[in-house]
């Protein structure tokens, strides 16, 4: 991988990695640091990283850094935070995007991550497996559980409306 490839990766993937991290960690400052760290790591391994796999490399690095930060800070909780949307929320949500934004915050970190990698970046099960170091079976299970959760969340709102 050359310097030109690296700079192209910055221009092409920095925003996507930042979105991915920010959605997971919900802290812009930390998300920015994680993106910086991810690209610094890429720069440090410039010669060993294949240019064709630079996107996966960045997402993988960012994912693991994000998980590390989350666990370190213990800011994220799994299903402890899970709660049904309160009545009246439906009045505030103007579109399904806002509903989903609220719903994915309630997802466990691993489910949220694999679902975003699947929907945001269109990765296959195998690619997500490589990025997250989870097995393909785990990836499938997390995607399934995440979708069911979101569907039930939307359905609950739909019923309330």
């Amino acid at each position, binding site marked *: 991988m050359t310097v030109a490839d690296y*700079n192209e990766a910055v221009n092409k993937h920095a925003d996507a990695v930042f979105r991915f991290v920010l959605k997971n960690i919900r802290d812009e400052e930390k998300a920015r640091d994680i993106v910086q760290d991810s690209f610094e790591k890429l720069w440090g391994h410039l010669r060993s990283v294949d240019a064709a796999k630079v996107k996966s490399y960045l997402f993988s690095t960012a994912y693991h850094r994000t998980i590390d930060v989350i666990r370190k800070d213990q800011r994220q909780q799994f299903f402890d935070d899970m709660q049904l949307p309160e009545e009246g929320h439906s009045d505030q949500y103007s579109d399904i995007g806002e509903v989903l934004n609220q719903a994915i915050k309630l997802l466990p970190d691993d489910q949220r991550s694999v679902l975003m990698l699947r929907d945001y970046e269109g990765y296959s099960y195998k690619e997500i497996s490589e990025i997250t170091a989870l097995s393909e079976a785990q990836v499938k299970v997390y995607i399934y*559980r995440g979708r069911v959760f979101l569907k039930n969340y939307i359905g609950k709102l739909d019923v309330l409306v």
Partner: protein
Amino acid sequence: MNIDRSNYEVYFLDYLDGNLPDDQIDDFLDFLTSNPDLRRELEEVSAIKIPAENHVFQNKQALLKNELTGSTAFDSRAVAFMENDLSEEDQIAFLSELTSNPEKEKQFSWFAKTRLNPDTTIEFPDKASLLKKPARKVVLLWASRVAAVFVLLFAGWAVWDFSPEQDSSLQLADEQPVVSTQERSKGNRQPVNPVSEKKIEQPLVAKQQELANEPISTVQSNLGKSPALKVETLMVQREAIPEKLEPLVYKPEHALAREQLDLVEMKSSWTKPHKEFLTVDEYLAEKVLNKPKDEPLTFGSLISAGLDAVASVSNERLDYETNARGKVSEISLNTRILAFSIPLKKER
């Protein structure tokens, strides 16, 4: 089954756990009475208690189910349909299942809304800080180093005299003005008769030895540069002509003829000195113009040509090494007062 020393352990465990049947307790106690060593063993074993440790599973909430996490077989098929995990036949069957059941169709519409879309308005704010320009920096860095070396070499070249050593008499002749015999005739010196010059020459040389300490005013009659001419014509002549010589008769026509002959001889014998040294510009231009056709003109070849030129000019005081690919890898300078080498590229 009667209790004996071969099977008493099972009875012991049942007794300690309180599972020994009532009808066997009497036989068991009789056995202990008749075997006091086993009674002590039972007492010792019964004293051992392993207290239960209070370990709590922290993530119990994750295992709990509620109405948001509950799923059905339909959910499984719906997700598989969304993820294109169903075969073509199963997809058709699933779609027909949806059309025949409005409730399932509604459920699936909720599933369809779970597909996340990236918020493209979110952009990484410090993207410019991530971009790298190391190649340019390296080029400038090394270019500045090479330029510094060239400046040093040029300064040294300008200070040192690299021209080939010249004969002192030739140098003296170069520095002296050419004074014609007519000018000489205007001065104090008397004209020399060319006919008698041969006769004068021997005593003149002897006189030169005697007058070695007197001030010298050198005059020469031609500018011949060949060694033969130097011996014959570049005579160091004292301004003070020996007074004891017999007076010479001035014959201007002879003097002029002699001068003209000298000029003709000088023109015929003097050849334009071969230009042994080229300027750096000329050298580089020659390298560019006369380069082999199969060899591309590159920045590296220009650098090599320039370094060759500098090495030649500096009498090999500057040297450089090339790597296996023919690129300049190190430049070194070795003089009497200064020696250093600069590696240009790191070997990886």
